[in-house]
């Protein structure tokens, strides 16, 4: 993460020319700027005394730092003797136990696994594909469907058995609708012109007075918690509302636990019609490994968003104005930490009062009750995740720009708290065996009101609920630097995604998808898996797909919902047409 933003910044993006000049001046300390920026900076420095002073300050501090070069204390004379003895002990130990020393190394493991996983995921990726058109017959026999068809470089759609994606759209008049997006095929190349746009299966208008900022679905998809956009006093409302009943994505086949292995079906690039064809398998749950490649229904492209396909049952009692109750208000909801417990009985989030100087606490809502209440009282606690039915949280050990984080657990029934150890915001995997943990320092500033990671890396570690995470050993996943992050697991624990807020523009961040080999625990990012893709806060992961809203594009184009889905044969993506105020229900 670049402190000045990874996006290439245009001149007009800077708050002021001085900000730009100071950023460039410090960047130039460690490498040349581009010719244009360098010329601009020199021009500005010639004019601006304050910026010139700042640039000189960076240089003086470097000179001061370099005076430390003169200080070169010698190591103790016996250092080699000690080290050699320790190596000798180490080598004897290595000889006794056959593989005990493990110098064959985790790295070799990584490579081997990468090869194996790569082979599993991408085995059918065509070696340099010849004549792409030949891959796109007008119809395809099932035999061809099970043979080597893959996300080719030309955007041959890859059929997937991903779960529905739901999102809330706003229109120009401020009306909101919940849309169900059925993802049936994805393409290997994003922004492939031939890749069909994702259409809604159904849409239901919802009457909500608050603008949603984040929407979290309950595990049974029957209700959702909305965190509203902040009002004038910066406070959010936390609202529970009943999701439109028709949106239960029950007819989606369960993805298999391996990077889901539903056999894929190739579909012709839809050149004449943008309508994705509907393989029979996606309408009926089926364990059959051989999908019928015969499309049964063809959905007409429709400008009416609210047109369920003929295959769907449309419950007559679907209510267009779902019930909504506010379970918390007057709070500033912090971060993107909100989550239901796996059994759907509890909902936890982090918030601080809008009308006082107090720092954050963990709030808990018992589903079915009227109000959420804080479960911590120290005003410096942040919710991390659920480990089964227990709340996992963390808090800074002290105030300061770089302090340690302490992990603890709370039993929601008794409120009893257990301290676990050092670390920050462990995101525990669904099976409780692993966790993503921020390993680094935490900044607790402004009297504890602002608590955020300072410097460090998100790591994948073994999770032991008795002791917290095991030591500092772990696989580095991503450097989150001093940014807010949101990391969540897919329900089967083989995939997770990490969103890291942009430092310069907190309205969006970057999203990456990772797979964890269920046997070895090794990390992988297969081809086409998103890596640091621009994304608005609040992604949805599970059922074989990852979905997020893209930041608004250039020229006033709205956000799109971008969906990445995977099968054992590969990873592909698809997106919707742009819309306003798009929030993915996660």
């Amino acid at each position, binding site marked *: *993460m*670049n*402190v000045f933003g990874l996006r290439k910044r245009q001149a007009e993006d800077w708050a002021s020319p001085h900000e730009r000049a100071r950023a460039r001046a*410090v*960047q130039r*300390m*460690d*490498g040349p700027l581009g010719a244009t920026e360098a010329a601009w900076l020199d021009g500005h420095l010639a004019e601006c005394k304050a910026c010139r002073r700042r640039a000189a*300050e*960076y240089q003086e*501090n470097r000179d*001061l*730092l370099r*005076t*430390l*070069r*003169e*200080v*070169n*204390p*010698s*190591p*103790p004379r016996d*250092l*080699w003797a000690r*080290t*050699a003895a*320790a*190596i000798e002990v*180490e080598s004897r*130990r*290595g000889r006794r136990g*056959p593989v005990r*020393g*493990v*110098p*064959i*190394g*985790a*790295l*070799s493991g*990584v*490579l081997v696994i990468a090869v194996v996983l790569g082979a599993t995921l991408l085995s059918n990726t065509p070696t340099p594909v010849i004549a792409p058109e030949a891959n796109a017959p007008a119809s395809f026999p099932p035999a061809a469907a099970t043979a080597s068809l893959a996300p080719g470089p030309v955007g041959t759609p890859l059929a997937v058995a991903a779960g529905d994606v739901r999102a809330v759209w706003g229109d120009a008049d401020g009306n909101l609708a919940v849309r169900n997006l059925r993802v049936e095929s994805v393409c290997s190349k994003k922004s492939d012109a031939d890749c069909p746009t994702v259409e809604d299966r159904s849409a239901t208008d919802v009457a909500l007075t608050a603008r949603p900022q984040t929407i979290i679905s309950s595990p049974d998809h029957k209700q959702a918690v909305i965190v509203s956009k902040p009002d004038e006093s910066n406070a959010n409302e936390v609202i529970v509302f009943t999701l439109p009943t028709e949106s239960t994505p029950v007819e989606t086949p369960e993805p298999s636990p391996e990077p889901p292995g539903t056999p894929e079906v190739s579909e012709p690039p839809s050149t004449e019609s943008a309508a994705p064809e509907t393989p029979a398998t996606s309408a009926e749950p089926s364990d059959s490994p051989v999908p019928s490649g015969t499309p049964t229904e063809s959905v007409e492209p429709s400008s009416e968003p609210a047109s369920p396909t003929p295959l769907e049952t449309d419950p007559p009692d679907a209510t267009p104005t779902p019930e909504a109750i506010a379970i918390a208000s007057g709070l500033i909801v912090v971060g993107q930490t909100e989550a239901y417990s796996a059994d759907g009985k509890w909902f936890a989030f982090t918030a601080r009062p809008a009308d006082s100087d107090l720092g954050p606490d963990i709030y808990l809502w018992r589903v079915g009750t009227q109000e959420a209440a804080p479960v911590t009282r120290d005003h410096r606690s942040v919710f991390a995740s659920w480990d089964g039915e227990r709340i996992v949280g963390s808090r800074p050990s002290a105030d300061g*720009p*770089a302090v*340690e984080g302490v992990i603890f657990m709370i039993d929601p029934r008794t409120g009893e708290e257990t301290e676990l150890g*050092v670390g920050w915001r462990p995101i525990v995997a669904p099976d409780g065996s692993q966790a993503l943990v921020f390993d*680094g*320092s935490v900044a607790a500033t402004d009297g504890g009101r602002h608590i955020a990671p*300072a*410097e*460090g890396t998100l790591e994948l570690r073994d999770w032991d609920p008795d002791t917290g995470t095991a030591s*500092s*050993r*772990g*696989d*580095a996943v991503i*450097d989150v*630097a001093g940014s807010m992050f949101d990391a969540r697991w897919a329900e089967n624990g083989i995939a997770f995604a990490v969103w890291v807020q942009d430092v310069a523009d907190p309205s969006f961040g970057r999203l990456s998808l990772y797979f964890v080999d269920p046997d070895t625990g090794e*990390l992988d990012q297969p081809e086409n898996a998103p890596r640091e893709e621009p994304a608005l806060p609040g992604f949805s992961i599970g059922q074989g797909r990852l979905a997020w809203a893209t930041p608004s594009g250039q020229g006033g184009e709205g956000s799109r919902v971008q969906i990445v889905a995977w099968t054992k044969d590969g990873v592909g993506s698809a997106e919707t047409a742009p819309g306003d105020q798009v929030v993915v229900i996660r």
Partner: protein
Amino acid sequence: MSSDPSILRVLGRALPARAAMGRAMSETWDQDEAASFIETLFAKHHSEIHVYLLRMVRDPELAADLTQDAFVKAYRNYDTLEKPENARAWLYQIAHRVALDEIRRRKIIRFLPWTGESRGAAPSAEHTVMDMRLSADLQRALDKIPERQRAALLLAELHDLTGLELAAALGVSHVAARALLTRARESLRQALAAERAADASADRGPRTDARVGQDR
């Protein structure tokens, strides 16, 4: 478990992909070869690694222990070294990880002076006071910035690592390393400015004469 996967992982990302798959996949490696290689590395680099660790933890005893640890870890993970020419960055990466682990485990940072015994001929009294104040300010400012930023600054300014070596040592991408350095420079600037402001207000106050002595 005697290897630290994170070291290897980052190394794998930051340094070129391993060519020697065959060696990596074999179940054994030549321990004598490894030991003699580490001995050569030790002879060449132990001073700078020791100074780096000393600069990070500021405790001579501890720095010596950590140097020993770093070389033992290097021996253990010998097979992860892709090319001998990357050995220096690889050593720094291991040492960096060792230092961070130690700092996070103990939150040590003792207030030992950076300067002192190794100074040469006694300069003028005025000079010493100036130097000591400067160095004490710098020392406190460095203490206040996050440890990864501190490491980036020390490695770049005092240990002459190239951009790529720095990235490898820190276990991040080249771009991330440069961004970290940028943040570090800004943090140091702010921290130093704060130290100087504190000095200035102390100078105006009644404790003027006591300052230098207290800087330790």
